[in-house]
């Protein structure tokens, strides 16, 4: 049925292009040759096709698989930590390895999994396809970006095998302790971590350059900025944030590397270590905290904004309804992005800052809740009276809304200085940030993978396994993180590698710790189902139709599916509308692809959607 539709469409648009002077002269037929077509690199050998590929689609898949592979290590580390926390009597881990695992888990999940997956993975796969370009602006630089990421990951992994092991300084890597004897991995481990981050930033900058320029300059004809799918808006804004935020991380990493290797005193104050006075003097550890969080807070939105964008598109497609308040959604994405640079010090309320400084940052933090709330309302209003299909992407998107709301609300608590001070070193914070930037974006990642899987492989993922995976992951993550909120309220401190029965800690928390750990093991194991589904479906999955979700955006309108090298066959598409024309009154189908000319949908009253 849908194949048929596509053929008709192509045949007709050829016809229309010939008879251009018929009705309004420029609507259907802008001559194709006004812009020179993009130059494309054609690979000649196996190496340049599959390994050092310059095709953004391949690079996206490479990025995604590398990121997921690294993320699995992060997942296993979380198992190990949780077993230690639930059964401290076993002597499962020593304190040093516990801290090393905490650090590596945090850094891997935030930077090497989520950032790389959303921007490197989905960015590369979707930007050229959704914008209607043949490839990224600078394919060669794009390839370098991926390989810089691979080297960064390898350097990070190498730190597990050096004397002293990986750094155990916490993912925030605060000096002076990060490079002072007594902290695990304070000599080799931390250096490798810093070098790896520097490589990651370098690689990301090359990728980010591509994402920005492709979105701005290489769109299809008729694709104005305000006709872009929200996915692209999210990825684009996140990339801009990253280009401004990652330099702060780079500065911090470079100066700490020098402090550690050469013995300079950028961040290191005069101090006595193991009874000896160190040569450092006068350095400012707080300066590092500012630099780190000037990167660290935008980083939260670098992960969140692509998730916001993707989930908006998933909700619209799978409820067969126009996204509610498209412009407001765009403004919210841009607004959140801008505001995210003015809230960083809310991570530092307990660093001894001036109370007025804290007051300022509490205010900006609460202001950011406004555009965020707008987005949540708009998602719910998109669902309102929609023709909701409870497909896998929809299930995960619904899970995202609930989880994000949950994590966002505890963020409002923590944004207030007076509430944050007692809670800041407890499990309440752990629960908050895992809900809002762990579980919520991961649910979107799953939804997006189930949604775009047919675009990559031409096959559908197994629905039953997917549903089991969803329910275990969704309910399981609440079983993990809800109790942590309670633990935080009764004062269980975070960062402790073992918590015994003591007069200060309620016995209920010990039982909860066991409960949480069992939930972690189950949820983690459920991800194996997902992995099986991911790899097995590439062979065994049901063959997908050409546009299986009946979506409007351009990535589903390529002549071949999965799209071939160059994406668009002979001519790049021409766009006539935004991607949200679902269930238009009078139209034959309940969706109108972006590249379908107006002459083919005469009866439909598009402007009244």
């Amino acid at each position: 049925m849908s194949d048929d539709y596509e053929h008709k469409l192509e045949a007709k648009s050829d016809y229309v292009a010939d008879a251009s002077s018929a009705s309004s002269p420029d609507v259907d037929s802008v001559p194709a040759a006004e812009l020179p077509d993009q130059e494309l690199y054609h690979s000649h050998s196996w190496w340049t096709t599959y390994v050092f590929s310059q095709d953004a689609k391949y690079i996206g898949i490479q990025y995604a698989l590398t990121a997921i592979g690294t993320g699995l290590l992060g997942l296993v580390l979380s198992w190990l930590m949780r077993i230690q926390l639930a059964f401290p009597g076993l002597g499962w881990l020593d304190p040093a390895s516990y801290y090393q695992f905490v650090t590596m888990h945090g850094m891997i999940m935030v930077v090497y999994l989520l950032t790389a997956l959303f921007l490197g993975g989905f960015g590369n796969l979707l930007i050229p396809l959704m914008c209607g370009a043949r490839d990224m602006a600078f394919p060669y630089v794009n390839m370098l970006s991926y390989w810089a990421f691979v080297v960064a990951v390898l350097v990070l992994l190498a730190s597990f095998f050096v004397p002293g092991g990986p750094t155990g300084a916490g993912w925030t890597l605060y000096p002076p302790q990060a490079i002072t004897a007594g902290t695990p991995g304070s000599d080799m481990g931390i250096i490798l971590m810093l070098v790896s981050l520097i490589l990651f930033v370098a690689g990301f900058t090359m990728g980010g350059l591509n994402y920005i320029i492709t979105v701005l300059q290489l769109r299809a004809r008729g694709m104005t900025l305000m006709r872009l799918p929200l996915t692209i808006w999210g990825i684009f804004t996140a990339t801009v944030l990253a280009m401004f935020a990652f330099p702060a991380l780079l500065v911090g990493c470079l100066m700490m590397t020098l402090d550690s290797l050469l013995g300079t005193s950028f961040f290191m104050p005069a101090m006595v270590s193991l009874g000896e006075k160190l040569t450092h003097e006068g350095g400012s550890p707080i300066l590092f905290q500012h630099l780190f969080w000037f990167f660290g807070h935008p980083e939260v939105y670098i992960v969140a904004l692509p998730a916001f964008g993707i989930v908006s598109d998933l909700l619209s497609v799978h409820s067969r309804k126009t996204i509610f308040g498209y412009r407001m959604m765009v403004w919210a994405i841009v607004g959140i992005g801008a505001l995210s640079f003015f809230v960083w010090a809310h991570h530092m309320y307990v660093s001894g800052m001036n109370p007025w400084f804290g007051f300022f940052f509490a205010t900006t933090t609460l202001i950011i809740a406004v555009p965020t709330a707008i987005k949540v309302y708009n998602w719910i209003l998109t669902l309102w009276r929609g023709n909701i299909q409870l497909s896998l992407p929809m299930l995960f998107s619904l899970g995202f809304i609930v989880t994000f709301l949950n994590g966002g609300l505890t963020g409002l608590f923590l944004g207030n200085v007076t509430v944050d001070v007692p809670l800041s070193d407890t499990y309440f914070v752990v629960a908050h940030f895992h809900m809002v930037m762990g579980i919520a974006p991961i649910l979107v990642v799953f939804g997006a993978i189930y949604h775009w899987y047919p675009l990559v492989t031409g096959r559908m993922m197994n629905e039953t396994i997917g549903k089991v995976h969803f329910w275990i992951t969704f309910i399981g993550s609440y079983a993990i993180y809800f109790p942590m909120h309670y633990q935080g309220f009764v004062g269980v401190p975070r960062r402790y590698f073992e918590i015994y029965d003591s007069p200060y800690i309620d016995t209920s928390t010990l039982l909860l710790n066991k409960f949480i750990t069992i939930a972690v093991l189950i949820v983690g194991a459920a991800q194996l189902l997902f992995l099986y589904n991911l790899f097995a479906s590439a062979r065994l999955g049901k063959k997908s139709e050409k546009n299986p979700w009946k979506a409007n955006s351009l990535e589903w309108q390529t002549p071949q599916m999965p799209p071939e090298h160059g994406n668009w066959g002979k001519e790049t598409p021409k766009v006539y509308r935004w991607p949200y024309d679902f269930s238009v009154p009078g139209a034959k189908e309940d969706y109108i692809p972006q590249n379908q000319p107006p002459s083919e949908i005469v009866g439909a009253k598009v402007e009244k959607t």
Partner: protein
Amino acid sequence: MSKKKSIFQLLTEKPWESDQIEADNEHQGKTLSMTKHKLGLRTIMAASTVLFSLFIVAYSDRMLVSDWRSMPEPWLLWFNTVILFVSSLVFHQTTKYANKEIYEKTKNCLYFIGFLAYSFLIGQLIVWYQLLNTGYYATSNVANAFFYLFTTIHGLHIIGGIYFWGKTTSKFINKTLKKDEIINLIDICAVYWHFLLVVWLVLFGLMLSS
């Protein structure tokens, strides 16, 4: 490209209204009327500006601590500054020659710029050598450390510039470019050279004044 629109105008378009639909269908797909190389350079310059600004913030913050002892400024640094200034001027002239299609002079200018860029780098290395010989180590005071850090980062930017200068020059000599492409590439390199001059003046000024 139709007429220029401000960001505000772009973001307030209503893509579902029939007037807007007609206007949008005319759109050619580019947001800004410049080549992708030029926009790429601007993006990189924006990111670099953030990078250097953060270094400057760190410098200003660290300066306030009492252990700060400023460095001497060898006269060679002034000389290097002049070299950078001259190479920027020459680049400006080169773009003019390229525009007027006086290619022989363009080529000579490009060579001269390469010579100046390498001399600048060598000059900076000699400054390092002199300072290290007189006992200004990175470890002895943080002001020295900042000096070495700034000159390294700026030098790396210059080396990046030299890489693209080399690509441009070799393409130019091998005559593989059309006229537009020549002007575009030389323009881009020139803008980057001016940018690095400004960065150096700011960094040098900062170090002089403290």
